[in-house]
């Protein structure tokens, strides 16, 4: 027992701040002790840079009142133009920013805010309520969140934590990509979102280029340690995510590009596993992160498609051109998509069949009663 505790002390003693971290905090303290005066509020840590302490306190007091009254909860669903929208952006999001004490958590929070703003644009566009002013205000907010994201990522990079930079950047890329897809779909019926769609496209390009740069740095950086245990956790998470996506993608009709993206995620997952087997943990981490990013993109796209009830590729495209069109004769064509992934040594095969009864499509009178039957089967086949 004594030996164990001595051993704990011995092993734990090796845990210390990196010399760069220790000297940067020391420099901060040296300048702090030169400036600090009695009975003043201590200078905040550089990681608390959004508001002054006084603003935090005021925000916290108002937040407590709002939360207590249920206003804060109700405001979560507010969109620009609603009376509770300012509660959502000033109080709810102010509290979230306050609680994110590290640059990494702050970057994550900013990604969430960017996503929320894009969802608001999409919601307004689908309702036909996206005014020029609202679009301009939301675009401005998105730019501010992106700037804040970059500032935080820079802080993480200054600490030579390229692994965390890669994770945070991948999350933003995933979210921007998903909303670029959704906005493109909306712009086909509602051209007014074309401007924001092209802005998001250029943001995606910038973030992708940065992520690739970070990936390269991470692959060669001396300080980028990857531990087998944490990779195992990542592997399980990604497998779970992709596994859940298979069935969801198969259940939506007319968005074939999503199946292709799931296949891309599966390919990255398989490559990651291969690198893991070869004990190349850094490359495995990069590939797991790729799989996570792509599957995250699909998941977010699906969420928006479902929430906004977005139409996919018109079903008529799957109809045979030569199909006879006689009243009373039902002719059916079937479109089938299959996603097959190997997860946890099992093969998950998800198949969706979409049957369109063409007789109803030919007859405009009976079109009102046209039926689209969707059957979905999910089977797990052991891969021995």
């Amino acid at each position, binding site marked *: *027992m004594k030996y*164990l*505790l001595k*051993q*704990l*002390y011995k*092993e*734990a*003693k*090796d*845990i*210390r*701040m*990196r*010399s760069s*971290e*220790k000297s940067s*905090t*020391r420099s*901060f*303290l*040296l300048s*702090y*002790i030169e400036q*600090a*005066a*009695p*009975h*003043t509020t*201590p*200078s905040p*840590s550089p*990681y608390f840079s959004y508001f002054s302490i006084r603003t935090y306190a005021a925000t916290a007091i108002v937040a407590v009142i709002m939360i207590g009254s249920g206003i804060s909860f109700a405001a979560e669903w507010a969109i620009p133009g609603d009376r509770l929208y300012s509660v959502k952006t000033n109080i709810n999001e102010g509290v979230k920013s306050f*609680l994110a*004490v*590290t*640059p*990494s*958590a702050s970057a994550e929070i900013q990604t969430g805010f960017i996503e929320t703003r894009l969802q608001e644009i999409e919601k307004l566009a689908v309702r036909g309520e996206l005014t020029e002013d609202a679009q301009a205000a939301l675009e401005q907010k998105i730019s501010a969140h992106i700037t804040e994201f970059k500032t935080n990522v820079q802080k993480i990079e200054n600490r*030579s*934590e390229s*692994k*965390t930079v890669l994770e945070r950047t991948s999350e933003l890329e995933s979210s921007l990509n998903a909303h670029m897809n959704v906005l493109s779909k909306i712009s086909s019926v509602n051209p007014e979102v074309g401007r924001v769609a092209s802005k998001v496209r250029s943001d995606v390009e910038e973030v992708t280029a940065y992520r690739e740069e970070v990936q390269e740095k991470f692959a060669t950086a*001396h*300080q*980028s*340690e990857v*531990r087998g*245990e*944490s990779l195992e*956790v*990542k592997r399980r998470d990604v497998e779970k995510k992709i596994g859940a996506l298979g069935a969801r993608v198969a259940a939506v009709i007319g968005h074939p590009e999503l199946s292709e993206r799931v296949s891309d995620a599966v390919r990255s997952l398989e490559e990651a596993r291969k690198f893991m087997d070869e004990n190349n943990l850094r490359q495995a981490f990069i590939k797991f992160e790729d799989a996570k990013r792509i599957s995250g993109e699909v998941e977010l796209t699906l969420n928006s498609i479902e929430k906004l009830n977005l139409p996919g590729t018109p079903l008529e495209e799957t109809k045979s051109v030569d199909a006879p069109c006689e009243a009373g004769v039902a002719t059916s064509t079937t479109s089938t998509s299959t996603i097959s992934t190997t997860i946890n040594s099992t093969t998950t095969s998800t198949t969706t069949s979409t049957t369109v009864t063409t007789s109803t499509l030919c007859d405009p009178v009976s079109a009102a009663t046209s039926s689209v039957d969707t059957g979905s089967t999910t089977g797990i086949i052991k891969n021995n």
Partner: protein
Amino acid sequence: MDNLTPRKKEFIKAYDEWSDAVFRYCLFKVSNRDLALDLVQETFTKTWQYIVDGKKVDNIKAFVFRVANNLIIDEYRKSKSVSLDEIEEGGVEVGKTEGSTVTFSVEIKHLLRVIDKMPEKYREVILMRYVSGLPPKDIGKILGVSENVVSVRLNRALKKIQELLRL
């Protein structure tokens, strides 16, 4: 450094001497490297503010740990509690020096899991004693209890660990 007053020199010396131990304690309590670094900085700025406000600090080592402990308690109120297991499994890099990573032996990982399951009052004395290497007298000052109470808690904690490890 040379142009600093003796009080400032003493404070910076305390930082040089105790910052790693404070960091280690914070990391084991919050299981988040970035947060632990922030807590170290906040601990020392609060300590200095206390000093310039004209208040007396008898034992700076015990004082900084006391401040760190209070900040950690505040942090627990703000966010969910985290487990020591996350140090092992959650991908928390506990950087040793320049980029290398500490890997605990299997028996220590098992011991940490056992400590993690213990009530907070036992967990904190064990971490202060066997992770930060503080004597019971200093632990008493940090927690605001007598040295005797600390020794009793340590003994009970060790018995509990023995039971859980079935030694």
